[in-house]
């Protein structure tokens, strides 16, 4: 397996001999690199029709995890608006992300039932930590997230008095200091 450092634009093979894998692209009959990294050749599977080897470029730095559609993420709510809540994605699965990813939970994605009667202020507040699922890559500004499942929703929240609240039902959390209950879309934790 040949390994050499390549930069974007470097020629790394011919389309007749290889297939372009990750970090590579074909122009006319030549394969070029699109990332900086090491050039690797991966042999083809024995049963595949196209018996060309795959040439790919793997980055020289390890990337942090990236949210993918279907993955469960932990995020912090930054702003709650009438029809959606803006969040900052903190972890994908159990790994912390290395760069800023913005997410949005729209009114219709907060829960599964009665989605047009959702009150965003009774579901999330700024500062809450939520577990959500990535629906799609969304638009240029943010991923689209959903909390429409029992195990998704607010995992940790602070009351107006400043104490971490205890969940008492799927819609309410209680402050241990003042006894006041606040409404949230609470995630079912445990089991």
């Amino acid at each position: 397996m040949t390994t050499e450092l390549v930069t974007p634009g470097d020629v790394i093979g011919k389309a007749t001999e290889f297939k372009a894998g990750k970090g590579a692209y074909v122009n006319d009959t030549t394969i070029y690199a699109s990332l900086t990294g090491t050039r690797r050749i991966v042999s083809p599977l024995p049963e595949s029709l196209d018996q060309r080897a795959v040439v790919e470029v793997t980055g020289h730095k390890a990337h942090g995890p990236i949210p993918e559609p279907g993955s469960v993420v932990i995020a912090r709510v930054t702003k709650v608006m009438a029809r959606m809540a803006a969040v900052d994605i903190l972890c994908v699965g159990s790994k912390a992300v290395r760069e800023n990813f913005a997410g949005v939970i729209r009114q219709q994605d907060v829960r599964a039932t009665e989605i047009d009667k959702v009150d965003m202020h009774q579901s999330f507040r700024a500062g809450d930590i939520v577990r959500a699922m990535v629906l799609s890559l969304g638009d240029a500004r943010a991923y689209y997230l959903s909390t429409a499942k029992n195990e998704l929703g607010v995992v940790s929240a602070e009351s107006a008095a400043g104490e971490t609240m205890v969940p008492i039902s799927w819609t309410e959390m209680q402050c241990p200091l003042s006894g006041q209950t606040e409404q949230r879309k609470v995630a079912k934790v445990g089991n």
Partner: protein
Amino acid sequence: MAAKVSVSPTSLIDQIVVPGDVVLDLSNMTNQTIKLGSGLHQDNDVISAMRAGKLSFCKPNKYWVESSHKRYIPRPEDHVLGIVVDSKTDNFWVDIKGPQLALLPVLAFEGGTQRNIPKFEVGTLLYLRVVKTNTGMNPELSCTDASGKAALFGPLRDGFMLETSTGLSRMLLSSPTCPVIEALGKKLSFEIAVGLNGRVWVNSAAPRTVIIVANAMMNSESLSVTQQRIMVEKLLAKISD
């Protein structure tokens, strides 16, 4: 300078308090339910003032601090005068002299549908009701009352708007009718709209009347009932000759 501590609940009522003054100590008052109004904050057993003003009490158990400010903190069901600063597809952005701009949904009008959305230019003055004020979110307004009727809400045309303090707005809205307005109303014909956010709108057929009413209202802030009547008499005497 140490904060004033009240020994018993009655000692600070109707007195001027400043932020930090402890007005009530609940450990001395067991088995009582107290209702705290605006300007008071509870920290376990200690109730302290958060605003400078007069501590007021209403039987049987309501306490609050009455104060007057230039800035307005929106509360639900307040009637305010707002100025349109922008219009988007779903909402108008309205300035109500609060910490944030408020949103007026384009459908929040009597019989409001997608087909008859009003077109308000930037700068239009509106008489509005505050619907929701959630922390962290922009306040929401409406041009209907709770049952959906128009009830005098909406744009205010012609006339003149003046900025006042929140205390003066509340005084002008007090019942029985504020002495200034009563005295002016006996001799002049005009209409006013008072917003709790420190804005008042005056309109009349004659510009002279508008000016007199506006000046009289601005001057009446710290006057007693009799002083207000005398002030209005003097003003009206000047114009009748």
